[in-house]
């Protein structure tokens, strides 16, 4: 482990600290959206199309209206005038991107199984559920487009007004001729095609919404299980057409998000509109099976990656082309998801030239959008799988091919061939340490022994070295990518009269432990107890400015804003302390929560004295405002680039096709760590989520566009029984892009683990001539691959 500089001297940051969030969550005291008691609320339930593609020829609501407790039923026509704008897509990645109008209730045609065709408002959740059974919809089923390959042909166009199923084509090829030349001159030309299956994000808390109106003064409070109350407020105000200042959005305790709660959803808009109409609160809680059609899916793309390399396996060019599935409509940031990976298909390897193209198409399936890692897991998967193929072609080990190509440490900050500047990196030590943790040589020897003995339980070792870009994002870079907002974050730090501290942040936690971490940062800076720091968030009335939580941005952007605001507060306190001590501010030292005059240790004043003095304002320096408070909005100058190496060891049973995970090591570098406990927890969960894509999860659809894994009985979210203990270690390479030297860690585990496991599975089977297994590597898929490799004779 490398130790490098940190700005923290208070002895709090960098040490594991138990979470302050826990007691409320452990006792049932925490309030998730469905826990809120809202007197007089009506319940919303949605009638959803059972067909992937169907014309709606009639809707009869009379039977539903006759059901006890049902208050009203609305169709798309009934509410056609209720919207000021369609549901928003904030990322028009190209000027000619096709974006079909998407309203909360479909009119005329349903475009995926789950599309809302009518809604019921009722006095209880049971009555609302009864109500949707009573709505009779006449459908004329249409042929559905369920694969991206079919969609691409435009054989059947889903949205007439678009005239094509292709939403956009986005390309990043800074030097086209150089790419062509590199491939022409390549000693090795690797071409691999991989498929990322659709995944259902499956935050354990389903989504929920409650809109509470104040009909006479026009205020509206929207509670939502969302990652983005701030973004939602702007978007919902525009979509519904109510003044932004009249809308307050509150995210209560949120039970996980993983990207799927980074959206503006039909039910949020519906609850607001119906609460306005009825003049009483309207609420909705998602059912798990319903979620397969009401909450976005992730991944869903086919990728072709080509590597050009010289005889030694040194990369000379990388070219990637994607075909991505947007689903039936464009959700909030869906078109941009492939772009978040677009710059990283060369991974952490030093490559002179680069080309990336993505074509995104509509299908008659649930819309896709961000899912943990959003674009970077896909990119990492492609390059890391392809690097193993290159190692085989060159005839060197998977470790050696990576070492030969890692960006050398002395090249940082590194000008990437895709046009980014990688902030800092030191890659080789993560590979070395991961090999050590997993006993690489021992496992290789064991693998050779098993092979020599003709064992039918095959051992496989898989490496995944990764770099990712997170800390979304420099606003100017977002502008260049056509994103509809900035990437800054806001913080206010306020010292109260009794020297307790309030931190107000625009980052919005949903399980990450922000309150604990932010209190540690501020307490370390101020020399006080973290328990004396209160963290306020997730309510647009308390924290009016914010860009919320996604893309591993909260610490690198939001945390930095907090750090800077605290520094400003200290500067002001120093000026007041100097005045109190009749000393020059430059002569003051601040340590352990006390200002003292350098060289005169008896002349000192504690922060508490300064805070109280700032509050009474009886004797402040001339012209100084009372109170100790600072507000900072931080717009990062660059992304941050965490990296690391993960290694998986698996055993594949030739007879059954079953893959068992035997061991897993992860060595990650997220720069300086605030709370190592949280870092470790994020890695554990993230790694398992990525392993789940490799081995178990698959939102497969049949030819009619029906999801075959719409509930948790069929969609294989792993339990403790399938998982193993992971071995973690880390290195520390601070980011020069922010004063704390921090990077993000929320998505790294997921980004790294999928290719590590799949490389291990393929490594186990390679002697049989198998070079790819489609994810998830289920027993059936593996067994079929073995049979095919053995000529169908197994």
């Amino acid at each position: 482990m490398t130790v490098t500089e940190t700005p923290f001297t208070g002895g709090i940051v960098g040490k594991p600290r138990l979470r302050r969030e826990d007691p409320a969550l452990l006792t049932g005291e925490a309030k998730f959206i469905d826990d809120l008691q809202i007197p007089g609320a009506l319940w919303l339930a949605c009638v959803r199309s059972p067909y992937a593609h169907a014309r709606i020829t009639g809707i009869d609501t009379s039977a539903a209206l006759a059901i006890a407790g049902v208050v009203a039923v609305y169709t798309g026509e009934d509410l056609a005038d209720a919207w000021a704008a369609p549901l928003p897509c904030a990322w028009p990645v190209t000027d000619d991107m096709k974006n079909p109008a998407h309203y909360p209730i479909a009119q005329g045609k349903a475009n995926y199984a789950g599309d809302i065709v009518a809604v019921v408002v009722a006095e209880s959740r049971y009555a609302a559920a009864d109500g949707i059974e009573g709505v009779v919809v006449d459908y004329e089923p249409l042929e559905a487009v369920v694969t991206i390959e079919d969609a691409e042909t435009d054989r059947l166009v889903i949205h007439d007004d678009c005239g094509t199923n292709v939403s956009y084509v986005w390309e990043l090829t800074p030097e086209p001729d150089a790419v062509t030349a590199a491939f022409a001159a390549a000693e090795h030309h690797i071409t691999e095609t991989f498929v990322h299956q659709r995944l259902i994000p499956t935050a354990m808390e389903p989504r929920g919404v409650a809109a509470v109106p104040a009909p006479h003064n026009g205020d509206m409070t929207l509670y939502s299980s969302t990652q983005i109350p701030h973004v939602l407020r702007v978007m919902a105000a525009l979509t519904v057409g109510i003044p932004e200042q009249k809308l307050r959005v509150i995210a209560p305790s949120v039970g996980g998000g993983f990207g799927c709660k980074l959206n503006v959803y039909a039910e949020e808009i519906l609850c607001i509109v119906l609460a306005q109409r009825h003049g009483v609160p309207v609420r909705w809680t998602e059912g798990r099976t319903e979620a397969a059609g009401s909450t976005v899916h992730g991944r869903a793309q086919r990728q072709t990656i080509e590597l050009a390399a010289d005889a030694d396996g040194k990369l000379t060019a990388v070219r990637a082309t994607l075909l991505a599935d947007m689903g039936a409509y464009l959700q909030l940031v869906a078109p941009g998801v492939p772009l978040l990976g677009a710059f990283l298909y060369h991974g952490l390897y030093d490559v002179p030239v680069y080309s990336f193209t993505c074509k995104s198409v509509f299908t008659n399936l649930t819309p896709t959008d961000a899912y943990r890692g959003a674009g970077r897991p896909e990119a990492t998967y492609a390059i890391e799988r392809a690097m193993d193929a290159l190692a085989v072609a060159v005839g060197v080990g998977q470790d050696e091919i990576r070492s030969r190509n890692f960006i050398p440490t002395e090249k940082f900050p590194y000008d990437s061939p895709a046009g980014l500047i990688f902030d800092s990196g030191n890659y080789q030590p993560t590979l070395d340490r991961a090999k050590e943790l997993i006993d690489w040589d021992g496992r290789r020897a064991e693998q050779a022994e098993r092979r020599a003995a003709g064992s039918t339980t095959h051992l496989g070792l898989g490496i995944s070295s990764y770099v990712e870009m997170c800390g979304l994002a420099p606003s100017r870079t977002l502008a260049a990518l056509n994103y509809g907002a900035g990437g800054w974050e806001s913080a206010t730090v306020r010292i109260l009269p009794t020297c307790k501290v309030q931190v107000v942040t625009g980052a919005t936690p949903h399980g990450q432990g922000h309150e604990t971490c932010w209190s540690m940062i501020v307490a370390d800076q101020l020399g006080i107890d973290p328990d004396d720091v209160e963290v306020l968030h997730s309510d647009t009335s308390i924290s009016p400015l914010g860009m919320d939580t996604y893309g591993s941005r909260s610490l690198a952007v939001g945390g930095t804003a907090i750090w800077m605001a605290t520094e400003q507060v200290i500067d002001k306190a120093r000026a007041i302390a100097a005045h109190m001590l009749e000393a020059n501010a430059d002569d003051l030292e601040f340590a352990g929560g006390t200002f003292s005059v350098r060289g005169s240790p008896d002349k000192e004043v504690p922060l508490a004295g300064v805070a109280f003095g700032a509050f009474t304002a009886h004797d402040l320096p001339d012209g100084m405002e009372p109170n100790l408070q600072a507000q900072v909005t931080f717009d990062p100058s660059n992304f941050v680039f965490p990296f690391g190496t993960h290694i998986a060891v698996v055993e594949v049973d030739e007879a059954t096709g079953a893959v068992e995970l035997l061991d897993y090591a992860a060595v990650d570098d997220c720069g300086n760590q605030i709370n190592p406990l949280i870092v470790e927890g994020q890695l554990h969960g993230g790694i398992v989520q990525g392993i789940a894509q490799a081995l178990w999860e698959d939102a497969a659809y049949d030819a009619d566009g029906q999801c075959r894994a719409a509930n948790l009985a069929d969609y294989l979210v792993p339990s403790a029984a399938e998982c193993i203990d992971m071995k973690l270690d880390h290195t520390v390479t601070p980011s020069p892009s922010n004063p704390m030297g921090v990077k993000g860690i929320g998505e790294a585990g997921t980004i790294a683990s999928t290719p590590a496991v799949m490389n291990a599975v393929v490594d186990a089977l390679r002697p049989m001539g198998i070079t790819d297994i489609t994810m998830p590597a289920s027993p059936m898929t593996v067994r079929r691959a073995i049979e095919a490799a053995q000529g169908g004779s197994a």
Partner: protein
Amino acid sequence: MEVSVTVNGTVRSADVEPRTLLVHYLRDVLGLTGTNIGCDTSSCGACTVLVDGRSAKSCTLLAAQVDGADVTTIEGLAGPDGLHPMQQAFHECHALQCGYCTPGMVMAAVSLLDEYDDIDADGVRVGLEGNLCRCTGYQNIVAAVLAAGE
């Protein structure tokens, strides 16, 4: 229909629709919202409570089925002296993140240790198979349950 259940030591009676699920009875009728709902196929365990001392998924039971029984929910676990040892172990081992699975996971773990006092890590993993967590990767949950068992 009238349903009477001893919940966290207190007899609670209410008139409910016969189809009322136990989880809705606890949450919507009694206001004990610590017990969560994560699925509709009895798969996730977020709704786990103790019925007569044994863990049960409260989304798979009707309130009427537990008439006369003794039910413990997460709200009934911590005592006047603070957290139950299992809750404390979850805290100390960082075995929760968003906390949505946590009440059910803790109740299932309490029941598991009650049933098997000499359990190892593999036993905990298999024993908690019916409780899904999306955040933690389970490593710290297993550690917490083992720590609570010591």
